[in-house]
């Protein structure tokens, strides 16, 4: 087990950034563990949420941002609702995830891809188009069997549509994403110019227009 030098390994910029972006004070945490006690996802976490809090408090950036737990948090708010110190733990998890994403920490590929596919769908259609989202997700993960078993249950119910719901202002929504990407790029550029050693692993994923992919996916499963 690695010995940690408490003062040398303390990344104060990281602590400051988490506190600023989350609006929470990390020193308010006294490690009672109530967040871990209530977290429905603890079973799957590689680092329990109370320990994420401790590692963040002690400035262990790399270990925190590498944690798979960040990607498994469903923002169910159990931790926030019950924290005796009124810390919005879920928001800290959110902020850590943003940081991990921006700095290219891989996290859990499937979950990140699902979220990206979801947003891609919103970007292209203004609303979520469930079939398209699934198609995109599958094409990025190669997980063909994901939910195809549900097809025969859901299809006859008339719940699944093969064309996205039409809305007029979808271009406005697309523009939100474009501007967001531009702003993030500007932001990253500023950060890079500030710190030369900035990590330059994979940038934000491109959202692939799903409709194009649809035919490809459904060729494998003869669902039509």
């Amino acid at each position, binding site marked *: 087990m690695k010995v940690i030098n408490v003062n040398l390994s303390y990344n104060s910029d990281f602590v400051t950034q988490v506190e600023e972006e989350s609006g929470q004070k990390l020193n308010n945490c006294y490690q009672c*563990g109530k967040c871990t*006690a209530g977290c429905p996802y603890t079973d799957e976490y590689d*680092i329990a949420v109370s320990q994420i809090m401790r590692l963040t408090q002690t400035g262990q950036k790399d270990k925190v941002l590498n944690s798979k737990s960040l990607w498994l948090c469903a923002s169910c708010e159990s931790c926030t609702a019950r924290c005796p110190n009124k810390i919005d733990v879920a928001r800290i998890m959110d902020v850590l995830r943003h940081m991990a994403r921006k700095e290219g920490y891989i996290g859990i590929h499937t979950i990140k891809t699902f979220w990206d596919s979801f947003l891609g769908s919103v970007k292209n259609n203004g609303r979520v188009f469930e079939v398209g989202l699934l198609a995109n997700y599958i094409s990025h993960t190669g997980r063909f069997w994901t939910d195809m078993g549900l097809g025969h249950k859901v299809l006859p119910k008339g719940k699944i549509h093969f064309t996205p719901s039409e809305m007029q202002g979808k271009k406005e929504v697309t523009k939100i994403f474009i501007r967001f990407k531009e702003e993030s790029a500007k932001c990253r550029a500023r950060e890079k110019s500030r710190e030369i050693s900035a990590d330059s692993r994979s940038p934000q994923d491109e959202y692939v227009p799903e409709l194009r992919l649809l035919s490809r996916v459904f060729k494998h499963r003869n669902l039509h």
Partner: protein
Amino acid sequence: MKIGVFVCHCGSNIEATVDTAAVAAAARQFPGVAFATDTMYTCSEPGQDEIVAAIKEHNLGGVVVASCTPRMHEQTFRRTVERAGLNRYLFEMANIREHVSWIGKDREANTNKSIDLVRMATEKLTHNRPLYSKKFDINKRVLVIGGGVAGIQAALDCADGGLEVVMVEKTSTIGGKMAKLDKTFPTVDCSSCILGPRMVDVAQHPNITLYAYSEIEEINGYVGNFEIKVKKKATYVDWDLCTGCGICMEKCPSKKATDFFNEGIGKTTAINIPFPQAIPKKAKIDPAFCTKLTKGKCGVCAKVCPSGCINYEMQDEFITEKVGAIVTATGFDLFDWSVYGEYGGGRYPDVITGLQYERMLSASGPTGGHIKRPSDGKEPKNIVFIQCVGSRDKSVGRPYCTGFCCMYTAKQAILTKDHLPESQSYVFYMDIRAIGKLYDEFTRRAMEEYDTKYIRGRVSMIYPKGDKLLVRGADTLMGSQVEVDADLVVLAVGAEAAAGASKLAEKLRISYDTYGFYMEGHPKLKPVETNTAGVYLAGACQGPKDIPSSVAQGSAAAAKVLGLFSKDQLESDPQVSIVDIKRCIGCGKCIKTCPYGAIKETELRGMVKADVIETICQGCGICTSTCPQGAVQLQHFTDNQILSEVNALCQF
């Protein structure tokens, strides 16, 4: 007036952020200042000697000390100047520690502010006049409010010291929370064996008058001469006749009354004596549950009572008592844990409080000392104790540590094993606070000898699963979520200020903190005094305390009262209002506003004038700001004195 100024370093407390030499140098330039210096510790013996010497050497007429808050050392320095032959009121303090050096690190700004505060003090001092105390007689009786262990200790110590004691207890028996306990930590002594004889002593002591089932209605007067109005609540039983035989309880058909003494574990009868060792052992009727009182039907107790003491017509009675000092020992109550929805908020019968568990453990309790689940009466096997419920929790407004829960939980875990050798206890804790003689050894025993499983972490949720309760917590030392299938969950519920504590404080005119606990005179040096002369504190009303601390404070309060009453007369504070007869037009506004009735009307050559009764005036100065003529002036805080301070600060 020749003024001397002494600027204190207070070691580095002031000097580190205030240039005291510069402050003294600036003070030398103020009008009237004949001498100014900076000293290391002005309150120390050499420091005080320096003041005395300077007064004599420079023939000073008044002294300013710039140091800590006057609430700390004003009395000290008044005695110092008196030693040098000055009147004690020819002295002023500038608070350059609490109000300057401790609240900022900017040395330049602090030095400048200190100079300002010294200027203010010297300006006020030039307007000071010598003031002289008067003596007044005192009533050497003491009122003890609250009959828990702290109040009992204070009452017995005072009574043994020869004072007459009046004890007022809210419930129908004395004994307080301690009477509800089965055993006490760390000795596992039987609680009622220790407390019982003390309760009997109270009942039998010739110097103690006990008003049980009574409350304080009104308090008037001041140190040495308080007047107390006590409300004796209607018991519907003539206690002069009641023998405590208990036949009424046996026969009462209304058996669903809330059993307050047993913390709601089980029910009691509408007419009841809380427990066999109650003092006084007298019955009272709970009117909410008595069908005679609610519906006019029944009357069984009146029929069966051999001494004919039942009186359904009884009314509350008011009694006036005169005392010279008051000991407040109103104790604590348990935090209302139902705000913890995640623990069921009271919906699950097998989640109980530590105090309810005590009643269950007690041989004279509702289960006869058998541990049984309230839901089905079964013996539990797995018992989970959860600590810090309503303690150290900002989210429920209780950030403080109650201090004794760790210990009573360890005790209960040990007793559980004694009662049910097959059982297994689990304790969820955050930190173990066992700071007392033999305390830590005791919690270690719970783990080492009684195999109590201590789990470091809070519990997030309790929910029923079959006939068990699933307790989901964390073990932060393992770094994982843990679950326990529990048969019974005992919450170590924290203490909060007793219900009604703030209302009583307002009657006593003492301060209380954000949580309703009473404020002591000084956190270190005046732990039993309050800021109101003649009112003392004992026990958990000042903050959560275990039994030894409560008893110690009870004795300490008694010592203070005995000390106060060691003289036959007290000196009045001369900082009182006086009336300038020439300016007074007899409008009577001051008489109306005085909260103490200390101003009366007199006649002077056929004209109405106001007159202050010096020994009653408490020196608030409301009359001074009310008087349209400026005729009533509060000594030491006259209009001129305060305006001189304003002018010292604000001058174009």
